[in-house]
């Protein structure tokens, strides 16, 4: 189905795969280190301009760590000039006061600061560098320059018990929006899922703490808590439907309908070096592949909820079942749902030693990435 009425309202530009952190739940592709042929400044500005003409209005500058791009100021300035509402999604590393001030002048809409945890030790372990103090400093600067204060904390088994400290930290930083999203198990997080899936008790406890906190602070802070979808029985409406809203451009120029789609088998990935954004969005086989409902297999095909969740996530279906056309196995109508429940069951009984886990968990590093690429060739 060629759905021309939809617009790529959200353009996500993963302007670099380079990152000073080594998060164990990173959603960048496992073989990211092989895709180091980054688009140059001019190419990015052309992408922004073409997408804007097509109707993109929200721009995410993400990565990797977008602050590692030497031309980050130019990219922010040019995107704002084009009329984007530009969102910088950063760990805060490399974000100096001078840059924050300049970004404000250019018209940057928000800085979304990611935190791995609230206590310094665990934070440093989970991102594997000493960054917590720096992030606290950046948070103060974000306030000083009157940006909305958006904190993004990725939750998982090893930090979810710290939710109270995380919330108090957010309060101290005067955060306006706090997203406490459990890890989604793709890429590095999928690789490490055995050590990242929280137990049912951990989740119940986190929800209780969250409720208490909500009562305490009222609605001056907007809190979003996202369950790990392995605990759900219906899939998420991934990307609001394939090719309906979201356009992701990876560091090397590959255009994707989501962050993860480059892992899908037997597909032609269009690159912005070869094609216009208009062609990619409207004509390319990739963006049309899962538009609408014609591609669906059972049980999705005859399901009365298909217009609500669009069959869930194609990448998750592929990761877990090997078939990207199948129903997202998060759905308990999927014949493969048992794989999810078994993973969850395993998590309940698993004993994790925090000293031990450091040795078995796979950090997102160039070395690990290259070794994985090598193995898969």
């Amino acid at each position, binding site marked *: 189905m060629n759905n021309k009425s939809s*617009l790529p*309202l*959200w353009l996500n530009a993963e302007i670099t795969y380079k990152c000073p952190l080594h998060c164990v739940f990173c959603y960048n592709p496992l073989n990211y280190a092989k895709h180091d042929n980054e688009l140059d400044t001019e190419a990015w500005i052309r992408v922004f301009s073409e997408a804007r*003409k*097509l*109707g993109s*209005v*929200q721009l*995410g500058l993400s990565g990797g760590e977008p602050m590692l791009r030497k031309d980050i100021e130019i990219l922010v300035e040019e995107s704002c000039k084009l*009329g984007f*509402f530009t*969102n910088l999604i950063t760990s805060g590393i490399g974000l100096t006061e001078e840059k924050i001030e300049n970004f404000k002048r250019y018209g940057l*809409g*928000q800085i*979304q600061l990611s935190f791995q945890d609230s206590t310094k030790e665990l934070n440093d372990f989970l991102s594997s560098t000493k960054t917590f103090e720096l992030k606290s400093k950046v948070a103060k600067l974000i306030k000083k320059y*009157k940006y*909305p204060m*958006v904190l993004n904390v990725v939750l998982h088994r090893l930090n979810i018990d710290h939710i109270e400290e995380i919330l108090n930290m957010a309060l101290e930083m005067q955060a*306006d*929006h706090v997203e406490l999203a459990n890890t989604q198990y793709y890429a590095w997080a999928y690789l490490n899922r055995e050590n990242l899936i929280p137990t049912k008790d951990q989740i119940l406890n986190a929800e209780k703490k969250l409720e208490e906190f909500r009562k305490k602070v009222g609605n001056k802070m907007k809190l979003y808590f996202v369950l790990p979808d392995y605990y759900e029985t219906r899939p998420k409406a991934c990307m609001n439907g394939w090719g309906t809203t979201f356009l992701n451009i990876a560091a090397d120029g590959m255009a994707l309908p989501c962050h993860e789609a480059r892992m899908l088998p037997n597909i032609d990935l269009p690159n912005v070096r070869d094609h216009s954004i208009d062609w990619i969005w409207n004509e390319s086989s990739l963006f049309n592949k899962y538009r609408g409902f014609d591609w669906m297999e059972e049980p999705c095909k005859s399901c009365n909820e298909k217009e609500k969740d669009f069959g869930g996530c194609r990448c998750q279906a592929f990761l877990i079942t090997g078939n990207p056309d199948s129903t997202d196995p998060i759905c308990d109508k999927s014949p493969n749902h048992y794989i999810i429940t078994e993973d969850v069951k395993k998590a309940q009984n698993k004993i994790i030693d925090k000293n031990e886990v450091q040795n078995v968990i796979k950090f997102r590093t160039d070395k690990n990435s290259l070794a994985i690429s090598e193995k898969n060739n």
Partner: protein
Amino acid sequence: MLNDTKKLKLSAQYRFQWEEAQKCYVLLYPEGLIKLGQSSAEILKQFLEPQSFKDALSNLQAKFPDAKIENDVTTFVSHAIEKNWLEYE
């Protein structure tokens, strides 16, 4: 209750702009977008610079002299304040 003499303006978090691709005005905020109908857009335009409700209403009345607008404008502005699209200076 609406204070009709205190100046109101578009909240700092929000941006108001025309979207050619959608042929409408929108309100943009971090990671989000609200499409605006014609009358909502006309009302919000009044507050791109700080202005009191009273002055905004008389501007709008002058612009649309034949329309009975007071109730609709009051309802919308109250809603916009509640939603934090507009804030008192």
